[in-house]
């Protein structure tokens, strides 16, 4: 049975960081942040094919916590459907992950609350989820219409007056954010942390979830990261999206899956693969509380090296400043 405990909690991290800063300011030498490196795995996956089942089985076995007898909720990115586009997390990857967690003894569900379309199951059908995931309706929860509770935030970053979240997300022993590797025309890049937006219930916040825009998108992402229970992150970069993402961009084949227990570290790594400087992505700072968690030296990369798989994602002019130095 997994413990509801991180290897290194945020509170511990903040305390350690503050202590180190105090030492540095007191002239006690160079501050050394005692940060246990977060592990992030990068695996090559050239296509959406049957080999994903083996890939995900190995990746989950190596990276995910013990989930035997626990409830694991997979939260894909399901936004809109257009043939030939790469908007949504691919259903084959979701099913391969579903089977991988199930093989480890978890009770697995899939859940999502799209931000624009109200008929979630119709959207899932169009996006291929019904065809790919057997008995999809039985294992799926529409987070927009799920039962909700008001949640008190431990550390509120946004100006949101009241936070309501769906029971399926709140009750998960492990919430697996399964994002698509995409650029985003408001926040630069949308990865596992931004994907948490789909847990805000449309039944309360509307379609689109406009109160979050007024309260600050980046700040609301941080609220969710702080509030939601134990998270695991998987980014579908097999075919991502560049340019005017997250809906109207162009498919971009990066041929990778990025995964790990720390969403900040996973997203920072995905950014580096996209040749986006994660230190310039504001919501990563808000989620991390300190840039230490974003720094490459504090992330233990497994599998492929970033340099071996990096491929620049086109950025709209507004976000050219996010481009990593030295990248094309």
């Amino acid at each position: 049975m997994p413990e509801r405990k991180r290897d290194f909690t945020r509170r511990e991290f903040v305390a350690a960081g503050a202590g180190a800063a105090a030492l540095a300011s007191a002239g006690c030498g160079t501050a050394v942040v005692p940060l246990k490196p977060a592990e992030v795995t990068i695996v090559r996956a050239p296509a959406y094919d049957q080999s994903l089942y083996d890939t995900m089985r190995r990746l989950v076995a190596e990276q995910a916590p013990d989930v035997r007898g626990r409830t694991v909720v997979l939260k894909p990115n399901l936004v809109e459907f257009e043939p030939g586009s790469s908007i949504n997390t691919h259903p084959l990857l979701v099913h391969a992950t579903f089977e991988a967690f199930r093989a480890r003894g978890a009770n697995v569900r899939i859940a999502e609350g799209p931000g624009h379309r109200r008929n979630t199951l119709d959207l899932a059908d169009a996006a291929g989820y019904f065809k790919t995931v057997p008995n999809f309706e039985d294992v799926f929860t529409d987070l927009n219409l799920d039962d909700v509770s008001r949640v008190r935030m431990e550390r509120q970053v946004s100006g949101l007056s009241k936070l309501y979240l769906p029971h399926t997300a709140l009750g998960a022993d492990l919430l697996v954010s399964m994002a698509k590797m995409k650029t985003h025309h408001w926040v630069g890049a949308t990865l596992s942390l931004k994907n948490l937006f789909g847990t805000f219930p449309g039944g309360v916040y509307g379609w689109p979830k406009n109160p979050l825009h007024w309260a600050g998108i980046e700040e609301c992402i941080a609220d969710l990261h702080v509030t939601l229970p134990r998270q695991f992150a998987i980014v579908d970069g097999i075919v991502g999206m560049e340019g005017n993402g997250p809906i109207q961009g162009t498919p971009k084949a990066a041929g990778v899956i990025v995964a790990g227990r720390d969403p900040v570290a996973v997203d920072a790594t995905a950014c580096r693969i996209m040749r986006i400087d994660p230190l310039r992505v504001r919501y990563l700072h808000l989620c991390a509380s300190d840039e230490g968690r974003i720094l490459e030296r504090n992330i233990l990369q497994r599998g492929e090296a970033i340099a071996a798989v990096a491929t620049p994602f086109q950025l709209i002019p507004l976000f050219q400043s996010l481009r990593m130095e030295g990248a094309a």
Partner: protein
Amino acid sequence: MAIDNLLQRQNPDGGWPYRRGGSWVEPTVYAVLALLAEGETPAARRGLAWLRSARRSDGGWAPRAEVAESTWVTALVALLPPEYLGEKLHHGAISWLLGSEGRESSTLYRVREWLLGNPPTPDQQFPGWPWIAGTAAWVGPTSLAILALQKNQQLRPSAAAQERIDKGQAFLLLRTCQGGGWNHGGINALGYPSQAYPETTGMALAALRGARSPKIEESLAAARRFLGDCRSADALNWLRLGLRAHGQLPTEYCPPADIVYRTVPETSLDLVLTATGWGREIFGA
């Protein structure tokens, strides 16, 4: 059979979930409308009692009990006939709607924009309705609010309500997608046109009953295309309502037999649409 489906899904408290779970205002309103269209029943009375008990002190309704503010669902409650909901409660719902508008058209916001030197945008002159107070107006809640006010105008006409209907319709016309139809209300993203959705196209057309514009003609053509292609029960319901509001739904039209009605609103709205007499009048048809 669909009525049995609704009755089985009713919660012990009298309300309905969307699919399963606790009671929400939206599915409860649609279920009650569907049951009333078939004649008043004990289940409908229990649903109405749940709705009455959920009314908030400001005259509006929250989406469900755990939510501590009145929102767009008040428009749905206002679609219920006053004689069933209660005259006073219905009047309160209409008053609440008349006091609600998108943040971008509020005086405070407009003054702020003026002070910042930002020129006024066309839709600031035509207030629509938001999902939640203090945020922008969108196509869905604006359409539902117009439908509720139009229905109320038949019983208690008022100049103030007519003005909001007219401005709400103007708001919708400003949000028409390129090529006709509507999505949630964002007609472009960074200058790229966004595509219309079938369900919101149907909703907006239903709310634009009686309005005239080339954009409506274009949108009716889009709705007819959607009606032929679409496989969503929710979207087909609203397309039927929207086309019927303009006399454009083919009289022989029936949804494809294999369409799956998964949620209480989908099942209920289909029942309302196929009902005769009073049921047809709910949306002013």
